């Protein structure tokens, strides 16, 4: 991998060199996303939780938490466990696991 990087100059760098930059909003959005995913992951380290439980614990609107948790499921970062009263409990997938 290191050898490959040494050989080839990335086209993204060449585009940057031409003066093309990412949008400020995208950088801000990505920061915010990283923060939310980190908060959810930290919260799940203590054990499996439902989406409303995570939202309550990290003090964030449940709709937003739902979108992130279900997207994390799509990318194999969390998995559902038991279902209680219509809500699944999610747990972190050990690194190297996933779909």
């Amino acid at each position, binding site marked *: 991998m290191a050898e490959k*990087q040494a050989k080839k100059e990335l086209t993204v760098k060449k585009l940057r060199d031409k003066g093309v930059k990412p949008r400020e909003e995208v950088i801000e*959005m990505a920061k915010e996303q990283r923060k939310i995913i980190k908060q959810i992951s930290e919260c799940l380290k203590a054990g499996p939780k439902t*989406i409303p439980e995570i939202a309550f614990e990290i003090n964030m609107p449940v*709709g937003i938490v739902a979108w992130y948790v279900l*997207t994390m499921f799509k990318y194999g970062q969390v998995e559902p466990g038991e279902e209680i009263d219509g809500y699944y409990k999610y747990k972190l997938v050990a690194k190297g696991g996933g779909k």
Partner: protein
Amino acid sequence: MKYDVLVIGGGIAGIEASLTLGDAGFEVLLVEKDPSIGGHMIQLSKVFPTTDCAGCITTPKMAAAASHPKVHLMTYSEVKEVQKTGKEFRVKVLKKPRYVEEDLCIGCGRCEEVCPVLVPREFDYGIVGRKAVYIPFEMAVPKKAVLDLEHCMMCGRCERACPKDAINFLQEPEEVEITVKAIIVATGYNLFPPERKKEYSYTGNLTLIHTNLNPNIIHAMQMERLLAPSRPYHALLRPGDGKVPERVAWVLCTGSRDKSLGNPLCSRVCCMYSVKQALLYTSAIPFGEAAIYYMDIRAFGKGFEEFYTMVRDLGVYFIRGKVARIESRNGNPVVIVEDTETGEIREDEYDMVVLSVGLLSNPELSEILGIDTNSYGFYVPPDENANPVATKVDGIFVAGTATCPKDIPDTVAEAAAAAAQCIAYLKEVGT
């Protein structure tokens, strides 16, 4: 480059027409504006009234189009200019940059795995996220990544991770000039944007949830995604908090038969797709309660009435009345309606409400092609009864929902008719 026929739009109509023409020995260029062919049908769960799996029908046809020796695909491309000179059409097509070399990409998804940016996923109408570089969906044809530069941080992780060096940030839009003898327009429909029906409180963007809008009010295409075997979640869950919905309602004619929204037309499929969704929902959640709010049920096709009666007999509630408003109570949507059979004003609370949105026209190519639309933007033939797939321009034909809302069987029949007319025309002008 020369082809016999240009087919514009890679939905089921365009695929079907291309395959018929290809099988008859004509060289076809199929131009699709999205990164994959498949159109709306590949996003559906199952189809009424047979409840056959939509993906199982569409995927082999998409693959057949991609591997057909006479059918050539140009995805992520748009027709920009059409000029008729004599018996030929000179066409300029703009190939948008994917920032991924199609011939190198093997669709492995490594780039998507490492990308740090999330964006609402178009294929699932935003109920889940995708990355800034992504494979459009599992069964995409072609199964190649696309990089969305608008949402890219330019961190270069994808480029470093790609085992085939397929990511290319230096790609530019490319204009391709082609010559064809005939054109089939199969550009399909646009979904009615439910946020336009303010009284129904649809949120639009699930990542930007406002306090007065309820993410458990979704539209019918989002419900198709929740019900599909290829659904984004692990189970049928409501998007607002991941609960298994125990009570679900459908609100028919959202954006159809509604003069106040400028669309008095019936969309012809919403009654039946809602009945189908209610059936699939009650099969997935056996104790689930389903209710359909309707003005009247238009079950006009072969087997439709029997399908509707069967679903009604299975215990789905049908409540007659035009829904006035949808409000929220403790995160649950509340439907406010006058039951026109009893005169009672009802306030019914559900876990989730599905807005059965209508089909609007997609007239974006009418000027470029010089073909007529009616006042609703659907393409119209000079004589609808004599020849429903013709246009006022000799050599340009139309098929599918580009001419009016219709279901899949009618769309496919019309695509075959357009292909047959096109073949007759090609023989007349000489190939």
